[in-house]
């Protein structure tokens, strides 16, 4: 087992416009990318659980040329709303770091 944060070159979150939030998980090499994809641990259901959504609200992508996995969700609060806490959406990925990958 290894934590996703140890396997990925970069895990990041960012606004995709003011109304959506997107997560990019990028890898350095084909083997690690394949290991994470083939584990099937990362999927729309897991993202939904971590961000308190239903799976049909999560867009989930495998992007082989970029050696990347991507997920997009509706923003918990619209960007800049009074109760929003992360204007750029840049610090919402922490729960992904500790995901255990076999």
């Amino acid at each position, binding site marked *: 087992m290894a934590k996703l944060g140890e396997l990925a070159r970069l895990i990041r979150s960012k606004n995709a416009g003011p*109304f959506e939030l997107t997560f990019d998980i990028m890898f350095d090499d084909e083997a690690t990318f394949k290991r994470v994809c083939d584990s099937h641990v990362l999927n729309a259901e897991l993202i939904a659980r*971590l961000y308190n959504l239903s799976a049909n609200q999560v867009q989930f992508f495998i992007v082989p040329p970029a050696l990347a996995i991507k997920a997009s969700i509706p923003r918990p609060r619209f960007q800049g709303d009074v109760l929003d806490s992360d204007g750029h959406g840049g610090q919402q990925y922490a729960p992904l770091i500790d995901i255990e990958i076999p």
Partner: protein
Amino acid sequence: MDDPVEVRVVSASGVCGSGFKESSFAAGLARNPHFIGCDAGSTDPGPAPLGTGKPSFPARSIKRDLRIMLKGARANGIPLLIGSAGTAGGKPHLELVRDIVLEIAREEGLSFKLALIHAEQNKDYLKRRLAEGRIRPLSPAPDFDEGVIDRAERIVGMMGEDPFLRALDEGADVVIAGRSSDCAIFAGIPIRMGVDPGMAWHAAKLLECGAAVAVERTNPDSVFVTFGRRHFDIEPLDPTMRATPQSVAAHALYENSNPYRLVESSGVLDLTHATYEALDHRRVRVQGSVFEPAQTYTVKLEGAELVGYQSVVIGGIRDPYIIRQIDSWVARLETKVHERVADVMKGDKAAEGYIFNVRLYGKNGTMGPLEPETEIRSHELCMVMEATASTQEIATTIVSMARHQALHLPIPEWGGLITAVACIYSPAYLERGAVYRFCVNHVVEPADPFEMFPIEYINVG
């Protein structure tokens, strides 16, 4: 149709105002580009630029970048295209950038025909299109009706490539556009010169972010694209930066919800079959991107409305006894504040609907209710108390009362008067001024790509 074409483009930077190396830009000009482009806008700074009419980058830094671009464009006799002027691309943003351009022209003795393309929308026009059923929501979207249009401080439309091309056709040397699709700045000219639209839109998506396509973007900088008819080659212009097939492919992920399909006014860019090939250790060739023309031409709207006026107090909490009961302590604080407001503001209609919010850094300030860590392991907390109300005076009154309530809010562990919060400033409050929210995520179906974007010309110098 299969005659070879070559179109060369330099993008000065990912955002006009964020800077770039003069040496990189000069290296781009030395390759004889057909035009210079630069995106100047974003919603990333939030609703404030659109709401307040002010850019997110300082006017001085916008002027620094524009001066270098204008001089380069005029010296080489090539068009300069700037999109989303002044961050949000509304009327005041366009006017600010226009004034900067005129000032530079005066200082440098430049003369040219300047096109200003307006993107701020007429409210009556929007109401008419709404009534005709020609405004529809994207997902997710806030509710939208005539009331939203009336309340909005400002609504802009995001123009496609056509208004840029029309301005050039009508003789403009320099085009400063209001809110535009970032990619439209770069896609129009190559398509007109014979480049496959799929390749033009894909390259445009990379060009609009400047050197962000590099493996390590050490600083904002210029990037260069050379098109053939069915491919393009991209490279960062700083020789110490490099692009790889992976870094170029990865860029399609950035700030997009879908990495394979990017929606524009005139169609959808599909990257499913794009291929990325290293030409050497720092240049990448891209092929296979496809542009699907839209059945219906749409223009995306962005709008901001005033929420109210905000004041905040920031303070630290170090007492472990308070920290271990912070949730109930804050709940008691909130009750006290609401009681004080009810008492002091009794009968004042203007005070109704205020929002008092407490953020706790060291607990869940960043993620709020989504924070999975339930245990506080920090020896101190940062507390931000925030009041948002219909006037600045009311917001400051509320947050000032909250400061005093928080200072002396007792806990059972201590007998006697405590002082529970370490305030940083005197006065303790900060007045944040007007705060806005994004109030639109919709598209309009205009009669044509031009009706929402009138062009104004100025003969400069």
